[in-house]
Structure formats: structure tokens, C-alpha cells
């Protein structure tokens, strides 16, 4: 396996970020990765590259430069119009083999994980999944990739010493968005790849945009959870409204599920699902340990409870002590207003 020996890995230079995009828009994490990418490129004294496979390459390159990239490697062609593992993998492998970056970052999205896993084997290198902290040992030119393991109970820092590029997928919304500098310029490198549709085994037959059928709280970005304090199954409507306003889904504590107000699929906690959303709003949840272990890794936690002693407040980013029947409708109203305003500004 190890075709990259001590000697040959010295030739690898540069920090790269893969720009994942669909319908002409890049995913947020693609630009977020330019923040650590820029840091590491500067520290190592190399250029920060992005890799754009598929149409809208030039326009996305301009965006990438504005977010801090120095070079954009573009491979375009009709076979790349929708993401499929094989053609995209071939394109990226081609670029890696030709330009030899030392560090390569992708978002830990469905596509990013699918693609990165395939590339790592194809170019014979290591890959660290779902990182939340990135660092670099400048002297040894080693990429330090830190990720949660064991269900988030421990953190592990991983190295890939003998192989290049050093690859990682990084969780979305962990790295801050870089400041946008409109007009910032960079270099575009276009590559061609001989790949015909007939050579590609996989065809996409249909695509259905997300509808809100069914819940999958384990993967939800925003969860509004009802606890026993909500009082009755009827009152869950108020929780649903708040979830709708935030664009999230409804979760429930064990008590609420056991009381039969909502199905088990919604249950968060030790006996339910462990969740790691961006935003977790706990309404009328006291916060038994069995619940806390299931949700304490959420990025932002808002807790609403009339008992100031409720344990849920010990993990909340913001706690509101008050009557949830007053607080929830007001929160719904303010979030709706904020979102409308944000939409108007775009």
C-alpha cells in the first residue's frame, strides 16, 4: 500500500478545500473550511486552493477568492452536473495526483463523506472523519485533526504522518465563516478529464427535495423538545409552531412519550435518540440526567422552564425562567420576525 514514502511526501505542498455545491450554490461548510484552511496555508507558507468539480465553476471560484482562496482548480463537464461518487472521485484524484496538496479538507456532509472515503483509498492515504478542531505542527508539517469519538465522550487527535494528502472531513458549522472580501482575486487552473456518460455506471433516476414527512431527530439541525411541563398532548401544537418557525423538528422527553402524547421516534435521551443539533430548545423539560446525556452536545441550547432549579439550566446556553405558555408564543413571534427580516435583507 504505502506508495507515498518519506521521500515522496515532501513534494506535497498546499492546503486544499473541496467546494461542494448543488444548483449553483456552494454548501456553507465549503466556505467555512476556508477559515482553518487560510490559517494553515499561512502557517505553512503555501497557497490555499479550492477544488470545484462541475458547472458554475468560474462563478464559485470568484466566491472562493472572496472568502480567501488563492487558487481554484476547476474540472467541468456534463458528467459532473449532479454529484455522483465515481466521476467526482476521478476528477479529484486526477487533481490530487497532478498538484499534490499536503492537506485536503472536505465538509462532513453526506456528499463530503461519500467522496472523501472513496478518494482516501484511491490515493492511498489516511482520512479523519467529522473533525471539530484542526491544527498544524508547522515544523513537521503535520496536520492535527481532532474529532469526537465514542459517542462524543472523548476527543481524539489524529495524525497521518506517512501519507499525503492528509485528509479530513469537518463538521459543518464548527468553523466560523471567513470574512468576505469582494473583489479579492485568485488564479484559476482548469483541467480536462476524459470522462463520457457512457463510462459511468451510476445514474440518478429521480430526486425529491426534502419534505417534512416523518421525523429524524437524530439528524435534525434544530430540535424543539417538549417536556412534561407542556401539560397535555393538545399543547404540543404550540411546540410544533415554534419548531416550524425555527425550521426544526419536534422532540420529546421520555415522560412525554410514555404519556402517549407523541411517538417514540421523537424521544431524546438515554432511552431515546442521542442528538447533536445546531440548536436545541427544551420547553418544560426538567433535565433528568438521562435526558441531558442525549442532548448536551447540541451547539446552542435554549431552556424554558418555570423552575429556576431545573437541571436543564446547567447545560443551557440561555435559560428563560418563566411560564412556558407565555414564553413559547413570544419566542415563536420573535423568531418569525427575525427570520422575515433576514429574508428581506438577502
Amino acid at each position, binding site marked *: 500500500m504505502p506508495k507515498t514514502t518519506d521521500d515522496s511526501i515532501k513534494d506535497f505542498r498546499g492546503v486544499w478545500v473541496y467546494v461542494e455545491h448543488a444548483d449553483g450554490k456552494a454548501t456553507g461548510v465549503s466556505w467555512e473550511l476556508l477559515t482553518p484552511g487560510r490559517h494553515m496555508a499561512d502557517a505553512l507558507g503555501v497557497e490555499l486552493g479550492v477544488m470545484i468539480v462541475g458547472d458554475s465553476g468560474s462563478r464559485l471560484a470568484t466566491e472562493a477568492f472572496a472568502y480567501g482562496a488563492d487558487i481554484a482548480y476547476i474540472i467541468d463537464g456534463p458528467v459532473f452536473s449532479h454529484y455522483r461518487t465515481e466521476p467526482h472521485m476521478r476528477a479529484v484524484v486526477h487533481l490530487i495526483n497532478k498538484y499534490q496538496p499536503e492537506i485536503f479538507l472536505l465538509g462532513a456532509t453526506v456528499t463530503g463523506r461519500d467522496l472523501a472515503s472513496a478518494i482516501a483509498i484511491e490515493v492511498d492515504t489516511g482520512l479523519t472523519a467529522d473533525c471539530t478542531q484542526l491544527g498544524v505542527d508547522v515544523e513537521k508539517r503535520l496536520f492535527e485533526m481532532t474529532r469526537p469519538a465514542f459517542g462524543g465522550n472523548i476527543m481524539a487527535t489524529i495524525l497521518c504522518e506517512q501519507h499525503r494528502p492528509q485528509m479530513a472531513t469537518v463538521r459543518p458549522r464548527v468553523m466560523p465563516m471567513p470574512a468576505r472580501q469582494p473583489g479579492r482575486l485568485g488564479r484559476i487552473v482548469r483541467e480536462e478529464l476524459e470522462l463520457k456518460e457512457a463510462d459511468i455506471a451510476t445514474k440518478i433516476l429521480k430526486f425529491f427535495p426534502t419534505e417534512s414527512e416523518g421525523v429524524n431527530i437524530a439528524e435534525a439541525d434544530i430540535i424543539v423538545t417538549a417536556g412534561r411541563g407542556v401539560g397535555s398532548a393538545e399543547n404540543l401544537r404550540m411546540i410544533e409552531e415554534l419548531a416550524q418557525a425555527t425550521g426544526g423538528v419536534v422532540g420529546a422527553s421520555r415522560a412525554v412519550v*410514555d404519556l402517549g402524547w407523541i411517538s417514540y421516534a421523537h424521544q431524546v435521551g438515554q*432511552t431515546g435518540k442521542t442528538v447533536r443539533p445546531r440548536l436545541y430548545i427544551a420547553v418544560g423539560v426538567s433535565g433528568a440526567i438521562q435526558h441531558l446525556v442525549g442532548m448536551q452536545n447540541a451547539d446552542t441550547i435554549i431552556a424554558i422552564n418555570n423552575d429556576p432549579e431545573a437541571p436543564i439550566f446547567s447545560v443551557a446556553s440561555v435559560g428563560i425562567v418563566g411560564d412556558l405558555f407565555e414564553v413559547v408564543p413570544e419566542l415563536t413571534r420573535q423568531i418569525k420576525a427575525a427570520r422575515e427580516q433576514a429574508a428581506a435583507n438577502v
Partner: protein
Amino acid sequence: MSIDTEKIRAGIEKELYVNKYNVDEHQSHLRVKDPEVCNKCEDKPCTYLCPAGVYVWESGQLTVQYSGCLECGSCRFACPHDNLEWGYPRGGFGMVLKMG
């Protein structure tokens, strides 16, 4: 003598978290036969003698929080009106004791 069931339940809730359960998402192994009978039941012993706090009298109704059940069977024998349809969880579900 009266007991603070709310406080006891909070204590139990905290304690049950150390146990491991494979919760049967599809069916409860405990069922109230006739809710009307519970309504008329004066003492409602299930609401205080269950070691897992499974039974909660709430809004005029007996709710059965079966997922934390310790499967001891006390409620079955203690119900003065034989109003519980009591069974074991489906095989492979329910509590899993590591020490026992």
C-alpha cells in the same frame, strides 16, 4: 400519611438512567384494562408503590410510563381491582441488568 409522589418520581427518574433498557417502541407490556375503574379507585396504590414510578395520575387519567419498568410485577398483585393487563416485555426488550 401522604407522600410527595412528585419528588419521589424525580428521584426515580434520575436513578433509572443508570439502568440499561431496550425500549420496545411498538408496544407497551403494561395496559390499564378499564380507565374508569382507576378513576374510581380511591387509593391508587400503583401510583406510589411502583419502584420505577411507572404509574402517574395526571389530568384525571392513569398514565403508564412503561419504558422505565423494572418488571418486578408489584403493580399486578397490588392493584386492588385487578385492572392491569400485565405481561413481560417482548423477548429481548425491557431492562437489561448488567449486575442484577
